[in-house]
């Protein structure tokens, strides 16, 4: 796991964090179809910090191409109207400018699939994410009123279509189920600007705080366990992180891992 800070340029932070893990070539092979999955959930601008920082997304795309990826797709299944989310988050343009294909989550992109989870059984699944060779999760770290804090594992809500609103009744188990189903090649958590309260969609610029930090990890549970400290929480307070740990998806004791600070 690597933490990049002490810089204000999101692209450099991203690059440093990935380099500290051994560079993108460790994760992406020549000819891969790579899906970069940011959080593009809300019709909010970068200043609101409800979506992943577009510069971080673009840097991950660029690195994937540099590592030899045949094709890089950037996509998410948004909560608000997707076209607005993709455009106003700045991710559409940023990703397009570095050559990524942007897939708008149209209805035809979802196919029913068995997830074999504890609460998630058969659901419409967003096909670009399951059809990829490599998936890179690029979530944003932020406060969440029900789940306390969200970053990597919760970002897989964007894997599902259908009536996601029912998931909140067992939000922690459903997050753990999704993280069990989809374990990414690499997780890059954007904490350049972090929504400290009123998450997940915020709306007030005053609710967000510049932290200028990017975390890269191969362990999505550890990534969540580390980044939740940015809003003053610990992994023990967040049930889904514990569930992920207990299911063996990763470790919530991130301190036990070798953490490189750059």
């Amino acid at each position, binding site marked *: 796991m690597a933490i990049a800070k002490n810089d204000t340029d999101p692209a450099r932070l991203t690059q440093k964090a990935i380099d500290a893990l051994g560079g993108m070539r460790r994760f992406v092979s020549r000819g891969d179809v790579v899906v970069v999955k940011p959080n593009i959930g809300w*019709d909010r*601008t970068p200043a609101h910090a409800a979506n992943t920082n577009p510069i971080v997304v673009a840097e991950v795309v660029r690195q994937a191409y540099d590592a030899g990826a045949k094709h890089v797709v950037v996509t998410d299944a948004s*909560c*608000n*109207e*997707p*076209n*607005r989310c*993709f*455009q*106003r988050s700045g991710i*559409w*343009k940023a*990703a*397009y*400018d570095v050559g990524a294909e*942007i*897939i*708008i*989550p*149209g*209805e*035809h*992109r979802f*196919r029913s699939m068995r997830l074999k989870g504890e609460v998630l059984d058969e659901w419409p699944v967003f*096909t670009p994410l399951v059809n990829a060779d490599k998936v890179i999760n690029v979530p944003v770290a932020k406060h*969440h*009123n*029900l789940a306390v804090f969200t970053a990597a594992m919760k970002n897989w809500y964007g894997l599902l279509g259908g*009536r996601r*609103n*029912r998931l*909140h*009744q*067992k*939000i922690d188990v459903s997050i753990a189920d999704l993280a069990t189903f989809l374990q990414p090649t690499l997780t890059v958590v954007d904490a350049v600007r972090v929504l400290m309260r*009123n998450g*997940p*969609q*915020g*709306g*007030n610029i005053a*609710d967000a705080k510049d932290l200028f930090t990017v975390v890269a990890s191969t362990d999505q549970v550890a990534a969540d366990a580390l980044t939740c400290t940015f809003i003053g929480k610990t992994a023990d307070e967040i049930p889904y992180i514990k569930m992920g740990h207990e299911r063996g998806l990763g470790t919530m004791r991130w301190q036990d891992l070798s953490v490189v600070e750059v």
Partner: protein
Amino acid sequence: MVAAVRTRLAKVFAGSKRPGSGIPARNVIRVLVWARRFAQVGFLAIFLYFLFETGFRGSFAAEGERIRVSGPVEAFLLADPFVGAMTLLSTHTVYRGIAWSVAVVGLTLLFGRVFCGWICPFGTLHHFFGWIFPSRYLKGGRRVEQNKTHPVRQRVKYYLMIAFLGAAATGSAIGGLLDPICVAIRAIGLGVIPATQYVAGRANDAAAATGIQAVQQTGDKAQDFLASTVWQSKQFYFHQTWFIVTLLVAILFLNRFVPRFWCRVLCPLGAFLGVIAKYALFGMEKDHAKCTDCNLCLVHCQGADSPQGGVKWRQDECHMCMNCESACPEDVIKFRFLPGRTSTIGVPDLARRTVVASAAAGAVAIPATRIADVIDANYDHRVIRPPGSVEEREFLERCIRCAECMKVCPNNALHPAWFESGIEGLWTPILIARIGYCEHSCVLCGEVCPTGAIQKITEEQKLGINQKPISIGTAFFDQGRCLPWSMGTPCIVCEEFCPTSPKAIWAEELEVPKRSATPGENGAEPPMEAVKVKRPHVDPALCIGCGACEKVCPIQDKPAVYVTSVGETRSKTNVILLENTSYTQS
């Protein structure tokens, strides 16, 4: 139908020998006829393109945070002088772009009803169906008979037009119900396009079910293409749109019996232009003596305006399609500037008493509908107007039911009202949050509204940056159905989606008793347990009525949180809170 097209095209290209004296049409007329055909196809294409672009699809090129439509997608409505006349009468003002309709009036003063014959997309549809539809009926003598002027039925459109203007004078732009541009946008935008999308969606499902990757990928690519050009990335649904589509099909079907029935009998815009067509500088002259009664002009006549010899030409009915002169083998018909008017009738053939009666009927219809319980008493809570809408009475003065706002809404939130706002409010826009909510930073409905029923507001006005935000209603909880309130189950999706800051929906966290689902030992009562839930509440001072909470509430059939119109910014009477009440303004 394919065979019919083929035989007709064969006739067009074969250049069959002209009967009678066989005098060929003047070259300028042959050119004009083809120019007209190209214009018709071109304007229909532009109309459809604008309709397809009436929406938001996003763009990789766009940098800005402000989202606007891609061009003057409402242009045909702005150029519609009947809309201009109605709103002028009802509001005594001309709303911005509608001044463009003066250009169409000017065009009519020069050339007559060229708008009907050359430009109107709905007219072009009728022209096409009137040509291709009557495959077995309406041939030869039958067609000639139907294409002769039928004054009784052709008067109807004038009376309708007058009645609608009467209604406009008493404060309602209800004439939009029959304005051809409004009809076309409404029926194609809310009916034909979504229905085609639905069919394409099912076709794609079938492609997906094949399990063959190449087929699936081709299907997905086709869907992506259509979603980025013709429709949106999700299926749109419109409230009671079956009725709108049924009327369209019926009106197109009538071409089987009377070609261009709509244009000749019903169209109030055609009537409006017909009234001013008599001043046109360009028109027809006839040499009756040369006419052999071959009736070829009548076979091709669009307006049923008596082009044949022996009777006077009805200038107010003529669509200026030029077919008659093009068809005439005898040198009877001549279109020219400043023609002699001895064989022309320019004024519609109307009965004065019926004109007065029509205007009066239109004028009294509005008070008659308004003494029903729709505006002042028993105002329906479902009449949630789009953000930026003016106060209800002024709204009805302006709204022409063109459906532009419903078409452009990226969330499928706006719908044509059925009878929620009374019979007068038919097809005016209402928000149905269960189908779609009002996207927080979106102002597109006001952008495309051609008459100002929905004002062009900025993001700052809508969001309330340094001012009060625009509210279209207020949310209420049905505590008996709400999961945290009545079932001890965590949820608060409503709070998550609430877009205001601070959130209008707030939650109190508490521990509530919940009975276990499994019985105790030996069939004893199931044990009680304590669960932590967050119970949502609405702050009516902050709620903007966007309906996001209602849309996402997981109680699928009848949501536990719903929005009603009370508290809307535009009304000084439909309010809840004391501090929002002001009796100094009406």
